[in-house]
């Protein structure tokens, strides 16, 4: 992880756009899957895998690597797309998502694909695993700078196990644990504050002895700074509440919880007919939100 120039930030933003395009193509090919979460987390995944992490795509089991635990497994299209673009496996394989015989199941299976640190899908158990990894690494080296990043959803905070893990992370003062919560405020059945309110979230996390930061999850420089600060915290675990827009990058998907669990082609038709949803999404991404007219090419 380094200081990044504006040009380098712009390159990451461009990479995130490519990853979003892959997500749309994967979901269209699969005909099922989750749209909002993967698009919303594309910037953070890009930043992690293309800048922050100590890792080696050619040697995924490298012992000294950082660990990324994806706790809310249903947003795996963004993890798969990022891993493929980073060189863990061929990009073409992304189009096998959810198909018979594919290594890319609808929820990740650790042993199937290089680069996966865990299997997930049932919500709420990722942070516990990240706690175990951070603790184990610290048992071997009290001053370890191997970080464990746990990527979580806000909805899964409704699982009690999450808070068991928080209690333990605070008790153990796991300096090498950095949780990033995708605070997009939606879940399958609606908005989190209607289904089961999480607020005041920051205060809850502070009460569990976490160092808490809040960021715009689409501002790559802001997220990068927050991760740098989290790494510098030496007596507590850290959590970054990343405020994101579900469906980010494709305006017809943004902010609507109905896109949580539907792929393009099966979502609500208030902005685009089902048959047009995938095409419109790709057009939007390829024209940088309409700022480029494809007719100009």
């Amino acid at each position, binding site marked *: 992880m380094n200081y990044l120039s504006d040009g380098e930030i712009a390159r990451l933003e461009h990479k995130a756009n490519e990853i979003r395009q892959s997500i749309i193509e994967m979901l269209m090919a699969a005909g099922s899957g989750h749209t909002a979460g993967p698009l919303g987390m594309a910037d953070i995944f890009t930043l992690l895998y293309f800048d922050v992490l100590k890792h080696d795509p050619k040697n995924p089991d490298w012992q000294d690597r950082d*660990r990324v*635990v994806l706790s809310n497994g249903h947003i795996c299209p963004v993890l798969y797309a990022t891993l493929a673009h980073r060189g863990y496996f061929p990009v073409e394989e992304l189009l096998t998502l959810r198909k018979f015989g594919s290594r890319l199941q609808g929820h990740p*299976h*650790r*042993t199937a694909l290089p680069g996966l*640190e*865990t*299997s*997930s*899908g*049932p919500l709420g*158990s*990722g942070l*516990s*695993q*990240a*706690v*175990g*990894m*951070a*603790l*184990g*690494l610290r*048992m*071997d080296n009290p001053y370890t700078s191997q970080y*464990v990043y746990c990527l979580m959803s806000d909805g899964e905070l409704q699982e*009690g*196990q999450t808070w*068991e*893990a928080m*209690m*333990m992370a605070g008790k153990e003062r796991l300096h090498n644990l950095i949780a990033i919560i995708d605070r997009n405020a939606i879940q399958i059945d609606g908005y989190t504050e209607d289904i089961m309110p999480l607020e005041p979230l920051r205060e809850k996390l502070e009460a569990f002895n976490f160092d808490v930061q809040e960021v715009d999850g689409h501002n790559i420089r802001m997220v990068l700074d927050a991760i740098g600060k989290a790494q510098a915290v030496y007596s507590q675990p850290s959590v970054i509440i990343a405020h994101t827009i579900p469906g980010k990058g494709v305006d017809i998907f943004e902010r609507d919880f109905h896109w949580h669990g539907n792929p393009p082609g099966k979502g609500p038709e208030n902005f685009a007919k089902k048959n047009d949803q995938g095409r419109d999404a790709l057009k939007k991404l390829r024209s940088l939100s309409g700022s480029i007219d494809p007719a100009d090419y």
Partner: protein
Amino acid sequence: MKIASHLNPKLFDEGIEKAPTRDGFGEGLREAGEKDPKVVALSADLVESTRANLFADAFPDRFIEVGVAEQNMASVASGLAAVGKIPFITSYAMFSPGRNWEQIRTTIAYNERNVKIIGAHSGISVGPDGATHQALEDMAIMRAMPNMIVIAPVDAVEAKKATLWASTYDGPVYIRLGREKVPTVTTIGTPFQLGQGGLWIEKDDDLPHTVGVITTGSMFHSAASAAVELEKKGIGISILHLPMVKPLDTAGVLKLAESHDIIVTVEEHQRNGGLGGAVAELLGEERPTKVIRLGIDDQFGQTGEPEELLKHYGLDKNGIINKITEVFGV
């Protein structure tokens, strides 16, 4: 009858040594910790009664207290295994794997993480703690899980062997333990191997009726005591003890079925889904044989002293005798 020479010579003595299987586990875990620095132990606020305290006292830096949080404990252990540790998670069987079954399934078994799950205080013999604490379904739910080994040791000596074996086996293992003292029927020389049962008692050849008894957990001693009485009534008994309900010793079970009139299974567990279920499934497919399953008959337990409860549910010596004589009308 022929009794395996490696068993405790005091097998039928009143004064046979007794110890709870959890004691053997505690010693085994401490020894595993001495042999391998990667071994770590986790407790969910039950460190003494599971006997994990022997390890905790010897290796305080490798002992992790997670509090009353079994779901977290299972997944934390998965994470520890992911960075090379060999975690033993310890609690009562009712809570682990009872409460955290899904975490064990997804984050340990499906993830292929090298975690050992220790469920103490299993079975009806937990006694006066009552039915909430009597795990009678744990072998069934763990046996149904791919990648899982299921062990129910007969005594403290075998529990120690099982613990040491588990610490060197690369993969998830479930070991169910009991609270009460049980007769120490085995010795250091009794074999313990993956998927291998022990034909510890073999019938004499000249009796009119023959029964192949299959036991797991601490039921062997009652079955052996019953065998002595049944022999006098003309019923020859062989006993195959299976420390592992999974993987099942299929060759051992099939061979027993070939050479006996009927098979009787005995376990401190629901009749459904555990040892009896495993044996009936195998024999139903491979060698249809009459199988009588002794265990708890699709009901919850109740309070009482362990001996009272074992008697009530027909799992003591007399219960086994009565069931078998009933079959042959002798």
